[in-house]
Structures are given as structure tokens and as C-alpha cells.
């Protein structure tokens, strides 16, 4: 049972790292970026190429994936996304889905349609047995890295000037601008960082979730679920939401395998009916 709990926590934290960038983007600029999964895919493929073909150690390839996705995010944001901010939500959806199609086809062309695997180093394979609980080593690494990231994010948000500026801009961007905060620059940096996080999530997730060119389309739903259930006005919201969903999904499939897929959707619907703004959203002052 505790093994299932452990597995669920690992899965949930992975979802969190993947979806965190989306939550911040949506909350900050009210921009629906459905192409978020494409950045995750980019990070995953960067890791595959660096580890498998260039022989870079796995742990070193993780920051490389982060930086690569962040760079791609920054460039795209400055060149393409910036033209789309003022448009309606529907146009943003059209735009980002168009980007997803392009990225899926491009990756298919360059890397092939089959699933790819990362050669995870030996020490990370298999599991320990602690008091009868099987702790998978790779999942332990995920929990460790994602935990550090979460704490880091929370610290940045709560204790740094950048973090307080970011929180101000999310709460009410007009007033924030009025106070002299450069919201556009904050957004560019946050977008890049969020894309980088997605890339890191993709790199970590390649082993557990499977990486192929259709990755953005397959997992878009899960990111959206995390963001909607968690609300977009804090980091803790999506964090707790991803844990809930991760554990719920894994436990549901273990205890009631016949209803496996229902669990995650039903949980989501129930939560959204009960709390339409998401579980942890503060009511915005707008």
C-alpha cells in the first residue's frame, strides 16, 4: 500500500513539474498555452540525444534539457507569442494548437515516429526495499528533484523581490504596472523558466511516461487537469492538485482496476463542481 502511495507521489510530482509552467503562464498573463507539452517533449528529446548519442551522463543532461527548453521558450515568446497576447482566448487556442501540430510533425520528421528511451544509468534502475516497501530508485530521484524544485520555487516566490513582483503581477497586473513593475519582462522570464521546467519534466518523465512525437497531444489533458483543479493563483495549488491526481490515479488503478481511467476524470469533475475556481484559488480582486 505504501508502495502505491510512493508511486503516486512520484507520478504526481512529475505532473507538477510538467504543469507548473502552464499554471504560472495562465495565471500571470491569462494566456492559454496549449503548446506547453511541446516544450516538455523538446526537453525529453534533448536528453535522449545527449545521453544516448553524445554519451553525456544522465544527471548532467537534466540541466541541459532545462536550459534548452528555456532557450526555445524565450525565443518563441519574443518572436511569435508576443504578437498574440492581445488576441482573444480562442485565437490563442488556435495559435498554440497550430504550434503543437508543427512541433509534432517536425519531431516525427527528425527523430522518427517510434518511442525513444533514455539509457538510464545502472544505479538508477531497480529498487530498494525499506521495511517491505519497494522504493523505486528512479522514482525516488524524481521525488527528490521535484521536491527541491518546489521548495526552490516557493522560496523564490515568497522571499525574493522577483517573486513578490511576480505575485503582484498575477494578482492585478494593471496596478502592478502602475507601480512601475515591468510586467512584460517578468512575463518573458517566467515563460522561459516555465518552459524550462516543462523540458526538465519531459526529460525526467521520458522513462516513466514514454516519449514519442505525440507526447504533447497525449498529455495536454493531464496538464490542463492539474492547472484547473489547482487554480492558477499560487504554486501550492497545482502542487497539491498534482499530488492528489497522481495518488488518485495510481491508487484507483491498483484497487479498482476495472474503473482505472474513470477515477482521474471523476475526481476532477467532482472537485470542479464543488469548487469551480479550483481547489486553492484565492478570489481575484478584479
Amino acid at each position, binding site marked *: 500500500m505504501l508502495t502505491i502511495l510512493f508511486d503516486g507521489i512520484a507520478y504526481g510530482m512529475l505532473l507538477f513539474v510538467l504543469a507548473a509552467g502552464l499554471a504560472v503562464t495562465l495565471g500571470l498573463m491569462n494566456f492559454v498555452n496549449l503548446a506547453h507539452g511541446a516544450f516538455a517533449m523538446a526537453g525529453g528529446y534533448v536528453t535522449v540525444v545527449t545521453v544516448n548519442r553524445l554519451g553525456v551522463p544522465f544527471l548532467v543532461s537534466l540541466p541541459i534539457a532545462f536550459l534548452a527548453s528555456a532557450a526555445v521558450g524565450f525565443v518563441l515568446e519574443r518572436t511569435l507569442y508576443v504578437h498574440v497576447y492581445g488576441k482573444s482566448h480562442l*485565437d490563442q487556442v*488556435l495559435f498554440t494548437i497550430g504550434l503543437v501540430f508543427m512541433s509534432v510533425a517536425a519531431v516525427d520528421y527528425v527523430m522518427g515516429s517510434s518511442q525513444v528511451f533514455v539509457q538510464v544509468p545502472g544505479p538508477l534502475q531497480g529498487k530498494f526495499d525499506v521495511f517491505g516497501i519497494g522504493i523505486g530508485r528512479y522514482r525516488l530521484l524524481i521525488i527528490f528533484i521535484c521536491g527541491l524544485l518546489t521548495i526552490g520555487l516557493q522560496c523564490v516566490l515568497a522571499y525574493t523581490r522577483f517573486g513578490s513582483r511576480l505575485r503582484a503581477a498575477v494578482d492585478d497586473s494593471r496596478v502592478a504596472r502602475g507601480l512601475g513593475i515591468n510586467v512584460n519582462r517578468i512575463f518573458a522570464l517566467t515563460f522561459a523558466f516555465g518552459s524550462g521546467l516543462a523540458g526538465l519534466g519531459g526529460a525526467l518523465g521520458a522513462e516513466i511516461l514514454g516519449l514519442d512525437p505525440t507526447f504533447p497531444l497525449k498529455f495536454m489533458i493531464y496538464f490542463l487537469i492539474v*492547472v484547473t483543479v489547482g487554480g492558477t493563483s499560487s504554486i501550492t495549488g497545482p502542487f497539491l492538485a498534482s499530488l492528489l491526481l497522481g495518488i488518485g490515479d495510481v491508487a484507483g488503478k491498483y484497487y479498482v482496476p476495472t474503473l482505472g481511467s474513470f477515477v482521474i476524470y471523476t475526481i476532477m469533475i467532482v472537485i*470542479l463542481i464543488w469548487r469551480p475556481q479550483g481547489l486553492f484559488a484565492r478570489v481575484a480582486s478584479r
Partner: protein
Amino acid sequence: MILPRSTILAATECLSTRARWHPLEFAFWIFAFAAIYLMPGHHLILTEIAWLGLFALSLDLILGYAGIVSLGHAAFFGFGAYTAALLAKYQIINEPVLAMLAAGIAAMMLGFVTSFLVLRGSDLTRLMVTLGVALVLRELANRYGWLTGGADGLQGVTIQPIFGTFRFDMFGHTGYAYCLTVLFILFLIARRLVNSPFGLSLLSVKGNPLRASAIGISVDARLVAIYTIAAGYAGIAGALLAQTTAFASLEVFSFDRSADLLLVLIIGGAGYLYGGLIGAIIFKFMQDYLSALTPQYWPFWIGLVLVTIVLVGRDRISSWTAPIRRLSTLMNLRAFGTRRAVSSIQRTSQ
């Protein structure tokens, strides 16, 4: 309190001006029906465009006129498709037209029951709740494979000829005529609906629900009503798919179907009823052409088209077609006299 006669007259005049038929609309439908005779080799894809257009029309009713964003409209589509297919397979209702209506009613009931889920919450919430409903239905259809055929799809469906005479043939002739007629009739009903006081009240709800309820429009009742109607339309579209292909599989509930639908509607433009139809034509032909050209990488080109459409901007694109609209309005002027033409010019320049 009784309203003064002048207010009532003004309101009636406003509504009837909105509801007037524009010459381009005539041209559209004439061409669509003429295609039955002029484009016999394309009836298969035109049939798909017809039910896809109906499906997009149903989404337009809730998205363009009531502001409900839905990523799970395929739920009603699929429900209608399976209902029609099952009715045909077990020979409960043999006449396709009756089966289609039954499927529409079934979908309407489902729409009514789930409409309460979309009353609260932001756009994002509605998006996810509707998506959740569609995916749960998909899982249910998979679970009850003994009824729905599961992942293999429903086998052994034979559709009887319409009214006993028009057989569904391999070339799609009957299929296209059937789908187009159904689309046209439902379109007329929808047009009547959105140009009525009910339709106007929906627009006010979409614009500002708080204000609308402040002046006495019961928001929830309106939303439930339009959602139910739209669900019925979607169910009929699904029934048309099931009847023209004699098949129904889990794909009818999939996320891809709802997402493609949203794309189709956004391409054509939401809020003026023709957006779904135009979007269906453009999207389907474009996809067909591109996938025949490059079967493996066509999503790239579609993506590029979508990105370009957004970057270039809808306003710029519609300004390219403005000359056509102005020309047709001038024709309207000549045919029907100045006063009506002036009010229709005022309408098209909005």
C-alpha cells in the same frame, strides 16, 4: 407595466432587420444544393463536411451565442452516433429519419442532465468539466463493450433506405443529399432561434451575465436551454455520421474530435452561424488535400496555416473579402430598395 407601442415597434424592426437574408447566404445554399448535381465525385467528402458543419453549428450555438467554452461536445455527438447505430443494428427503429430524430432527443436528454455542470465556473473550468464528461463517456463505452462493440466498434449495422426508397450507396449521393437537407432544416431553425428575443437575451448573457441577471433575465435557465438544444444538434450530427458510414466506434467520443471541432469553429469564426459551416469546408478540404500530398507530415502544414491565420489576423483576412460583401450588398440595394439596403449596410459594417 405595458411597454409603449413605439418601443415594441422599434424592437420588432431591429429583430426583423437582423433576420433578413443576405444575398451571399442565398448563394451559399444554392451552391450547396447544386453540388448534388454538379460535383458527384466529391459527395463523400461533402457528406463529411455536412455533418461536421452541423456539429460545428451546434458548438457555435453555445460558444458564439452563449459564451460556453466546451472541449467535450463530442460527448453528445458520440451519444447520438451510438444511439442511431444501435437503433439500426437491433432494428428497433428502421426508418433512418426517425432514428436520427430519436438520437437527437436522446442527446438532448444527456445535454439537459449535464448542463448543470457548466453553469458555474470560469472558462477553464467549463472546458475541463465538459472534457471530463466526454472522456468518462468514452470509458463507459469501452467498458460496456458487449453493447457498444468496444474498441472494435459497433459491427453489423445496416441502414435501411430512407423512406424505403433512397438507398445509401457507396458513392455517397444519398448520404450527401440527406445530410445537406437535415443541415439546412436545422440551420433554418437555429437562425430563427438566434434572431428571436431568446437569441438576443443569450447574447446579453454572453456579454455580461451579472448585468443580464440584474435586468431580470434568468441566466441559468437560458444556458440550460441553449445547451440542451445544442446537444440535440450535436447528437443529430453524430447520428448522420453513424448512418452514412454504418459504423460507430469509440473515436466519436475522443478528445481529438472535440479539439478538431473547436479548431473548425474558430477558423470560420464564432457568433454568426455560418462560421461552423465555412470552417468545416475550409478545414476538411485543406486536410484532405494536404494529407494526400504528404501523408506523413500534413499536420505540420495545417499547423502552419493555423499559426499564420492568427498572426495575420482575422480582421485583415476579412478585409480581403470585404469587396465581395460590399458588391452583394449593392445588389441587395438594387433588388429591394434603398431603405432596407441602408439598414443591411449598417449591419455588415459592424
